[in-house]
């Protein structure tokens, strides 16, 4: 009977092991993927706007400094924004020609440090000690591209601040490997998921 019970328990354990599979931990796997998040101002009519201006470089903000960056990736991003805006009916003009929208493109690169600890007690033979809490440190560097479509026509009447009529965030740029084509496609997707950005005024 004991042998049967042992086999029974062994079989149960084997079944449990076979049937249990790991699922991808969020921090290791899903963070490698690009995520595109957009939000537009639902109160305005984009048809009231006709022109836009685009910078020739991207602002890079890190923990240490702020710089202007250029290069093949920057060119790919700006070209894609250009293509999408023009396909939506907007006309590109120079910044000095009083455009209706100004496109701001910023790349954020931050290093996050976090701590975690496991609590455990130590019970020696005669008496017990206070708990020991070892602390572990880990870090990851995250990159995010932010595109803001800034309204250069209307300002807040009280504060005189400019309104952002549409913003887009592309997360996950520094986790995993992403080609220029993937990044351009993500920029394009930001426009695809906001079909409201279009004008027939031109």
């Amino acid at each position, binding site marked *: 009977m004991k042998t049967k019970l042992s086999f029974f328990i062994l079989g149960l354990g084997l079944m449990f092991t076979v049937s249990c599979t790991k699922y991808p931990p969020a921090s290791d796997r899903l963070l490698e993927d690009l995520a595109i*998040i957009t939000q537009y101002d639902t109160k305005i009519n984009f048809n009231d706007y006709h022109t836009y201006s685009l910078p020739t470089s991207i602002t890079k903000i890190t923990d240490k400094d702020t710089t202007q960056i250029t290069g093949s990736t920057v060119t790919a991003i700006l070209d894609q924004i250009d293509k999408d805006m023009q396909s939506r009916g907007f006309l590109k003009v120079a910044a000095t020609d009083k455009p209706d929208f100004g496109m701001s493109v910023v790349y954020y690169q931050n290093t996050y440090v976090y701590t975690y600890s496991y609590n455990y007690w130590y019970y020696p033979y005669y008496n017990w000690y206070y708990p020991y809490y070892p602390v572990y440190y880990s870090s990851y560097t995250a990159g995010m591209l932010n595109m803001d479509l800034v309204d250069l026509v209307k300002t807040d009447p009280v504060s005189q601040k400019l309104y952002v009529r549409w913003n887009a965030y592309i997360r996950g740029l520094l986790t995993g490997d992403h080609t220029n084509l993937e990044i351009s496609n993500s920029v394009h997707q930001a426009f695809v998921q906001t079909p409201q950005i279009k004008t027939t005024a031109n």
Partner: protein
Amino acid sequence: MKKIFSIIILVVLSMSVMQAQESSTVGFTPSSYYTFSWNTTFPIGDLNKWVDQPGPAGFDFGGRYIIKNGLTAGFNIAWQRVSKIYDAQTYTIPDKGVAITARNYRFTWMVPFQAVIAYHLRPDRLISPYLGLGIGGDYMEHHLMIQEYDIYETCWDFSLTPEIGILAKFGQFSSWGALLAFNYKWTTNRIKIYETTSSDLQMLNLKVGIVLTVR
């Protein structure tokens, strides 16, 4: 690992069939039997809209007490997961003008628990087919993971599970045997996460396992 285990089960089932040709009756009267099996779930209906692929991660444990003339009553408790990764899914919150496109991971954990009644068509044979009905409930957790965000909801339900299966004992006087069963489950469970709405979740389950008969 799973392939090796499946092959072992198939070999054992084949051995029991060969033994049945020599002597077809069981050499003792059992009082009860216990089963534990590897369970694969096939989502159908609204559950298939949530996850549209089979979930091989699952196990089932059951017990049956023999009442009389092939009629048995007992219980089943199980654990199951169905999951799938969907590339580039877009979710929107139209009144806020928000849209999110990302790879997302959908999965559902289930813990079914049921009272079962079954009828064995040839209880004194080495190979004994049966028909059963389980009545009980499930605890389910439905998860949608986008990057590090985990959006989930939990739901208890009522469920019915008609089942058809076959027990094959390893020998006339052996307490061990193999189980192969197939069931359909209907539940009152529902999923309501963002734009996904599913109700009355249904699935098919395939169970392959072993049986311990108690005299």
